[in-house]
């Protein structure tokens, strides 16, 4: 399977996530789009890891090239989990204060 197939798939997912962030105003859906983008990146990382592994294993059998990328994905998941817990807490608090999770009401930055 050539690498560009994975690149295009991951890019499409990522850009759908970006477009979602830009078009939707519901804070939770924006948050989910961010998760979507993260997953697109994860997929690409794993694909790259297997691409490098494929070239390295031809020269040296038993190599572990490519584990780094998969561990990065692991750490991204860790960070994402932490982010979600804090982010959802913020959204809950925001809802408690404004009774809405529409980000257009969060225009206090102007003042």
């Amino acid at each position, binding site marked *: 399977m050539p690498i560009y197939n994975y690149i295009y798939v991951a890019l499409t997912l990522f850009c759908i996530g970006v477009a979602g962030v*830009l078009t939707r105003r519901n804070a939770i859906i924006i948050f989910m789009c961010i998760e979507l983008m993260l997953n697109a990146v994860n997929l690409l990382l794993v694909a790259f890891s297997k691409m490098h592994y494929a070239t390295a294993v031809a020269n040296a059998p038993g190599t572990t090239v490519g584990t780094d990328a998969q561990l990065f994905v692991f750490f991204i998941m860790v960070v994402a989990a932490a982010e979600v817990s804090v982010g959802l807490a913020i959204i809950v608090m925001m809802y408690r204060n404004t009774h809405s999770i529409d980000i257009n009401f969060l225009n206090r930055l102007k003042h």
Partner: protein
Amino acid sequence: MSNILSYIWLVPLLPLIGFLINGLGRNFLSKAMVSIVGCGVLLASFVVSVYFFMSVKEGNHDVVKLFDFITAGKLSIPFEFQVDALSSLFLLIITGVGFLIHLYSTAYMHEESNAHYARYFAYLNLFVFSMLLLVLGGNYVIMFIGWEGVGLCSYLLIGYWFKNTDYNNAARKAFIMNRIGDLGFLLAVFWIIQQFGSVSFGEVFANAEGKSTAILTGITLLLFVGATGKSAQIPLYTWLPDAMAGPTPVSALIHAATMVTAGIYMIARSNVMYTLAPVSQTVVAVVGLATAIFAATIAIKQNDIKKVLAYSTVSQLGYMFLGLGVGAYTGAVFHVMTHAFFKALLFLGAGSVIHAMHHEQDIRNMGGLKKKLPITHLTFLLGCIAIAGIPPFSGFFSKDEILAAAYEASPVYWILGVAGAMMTAFYMFRLYATTFLGNFRGTEEQEHHLHESPWAMTVPLIVLAILAVVGGFVGIPKVFAENAHSLENFLSPIFADSEKLIKERTPLSHSTEYGLMGISVGLALFAILYAVNRFSKKPEMEDASGFGKVLANKWYVDEIYDAIIGKPLKAISKFFNNVIEKSGIDGFVNGIGEGVQYASRQLRLLQSGQVGSYILLMVLGMIILMVVQFFIK
């Protein structure tokens, strides 16, 4: 013996010290202390000057280099003093007359408050310092420092009573007029540097003969422009009569005896260059003569005692320039000296009258002061006779020397010169008769308070009167006695180069010279008698009419200057202010400001505060970054 001259810096240093003490201590020195310091430094300076004068008289002369003042590339301008016959003579005049006037001022100015009294003496000392720098300077740059210094002091002293707007305007007028002349001087100095590579008198004069006449004419004419400013010649003379706004001793010191003769000193110092540039000489002579006559006509109709003397000064300065122009350098310097004596005397006498009359200056309100002010009257009379040129008073000798030289150059000069001399005699005795003879015409209160001035004022008057009477004997012309012109012998080293260059002239025969003297003295005597007769009993009380009105209004020169220079300048300024400044420059500047404000108002809308738009812009920024990164190399 020669090295004693290297202490010449003592002479200007003493007044500088006096200036510093009086200037810095003006708030806590008593008047007595100020007077002692102010006069003391001058007296000390005078004594030292006498010593140097004696040394020079024995044949010493030297250029004393103190330190390097300006060094730039090949040009090196040292701070040097030139001690020779000419500068030592001026030293004596400046410090001697200066001391007498300082002494006089202690009495004249005693009504001022302590601080202002000290300020006055500080200015006077600074003036003397600058003037000494001017005459001692060994090159044109040092001379220029002094030149500017005296201009500054003149400005400060004319505007001494700074609460009076007219006086301030007079001070400004003097300063600006002087600036015009100074520009000429400065350009001349630049030209000299460009041509000679040096500004030291010795080098410049030694190399002057090798330069083309056109260059020398240009330089000398520019120098003369400077001289017309400082020495009040046509067309820059109008500041001097207005300068009478200052205290009378200031008028005597600065605007009669010393500063205004700076131009004559400068030209006498540069005599070699002038002799090599005949066109400039002619210009100097013509301008001098024209000023002499012109100012004399104005003086005839003036009623302010100081204005008469001021125009008389302008006129006498014109004679000096006439002397310089016809090559009678000694005569011009001689006239500077005698003029310093009798004009200082006349001004101080006028000051004494004004003091007695409680600052009344209009001679129509005076009269009959002869009995009340005997010393002033006598000394003033002697001064008048001296300026009128009656032998054997000093004015006769010096003026006659100039007139004789003028006759040698052209009889037309002589005729006009004598006419001017006659007018001089006439207006001086009109002034004398109106002021001192006849009946008193002031208020009773003034009459009651009339008093002779204190000793500090009369002693200088007496000393100056003696000098005005006998001062001429240093320059007895050859017709009376061979080799009796001791001043000429003394100054001969200075003018030796010029004398060599001047074409051999046939000296006037003795009979011609006697004849010329006779005519001028006779005309002067006639004018004196006529003036005394006419004005002692029945002075001119009414305002002048007809041609006299033109004279009384000074030929409307101030008005003409205002019309041809002042008004257009104001119109141009107004145009620039209203059109260029308001719409052009302001429009440009304000336009930028308004443009920025408008742009900010529009750009501000980008900051909507909406998170969505920020994210959108962020994404756009990322896109641009990517495009730049990948596609624009």
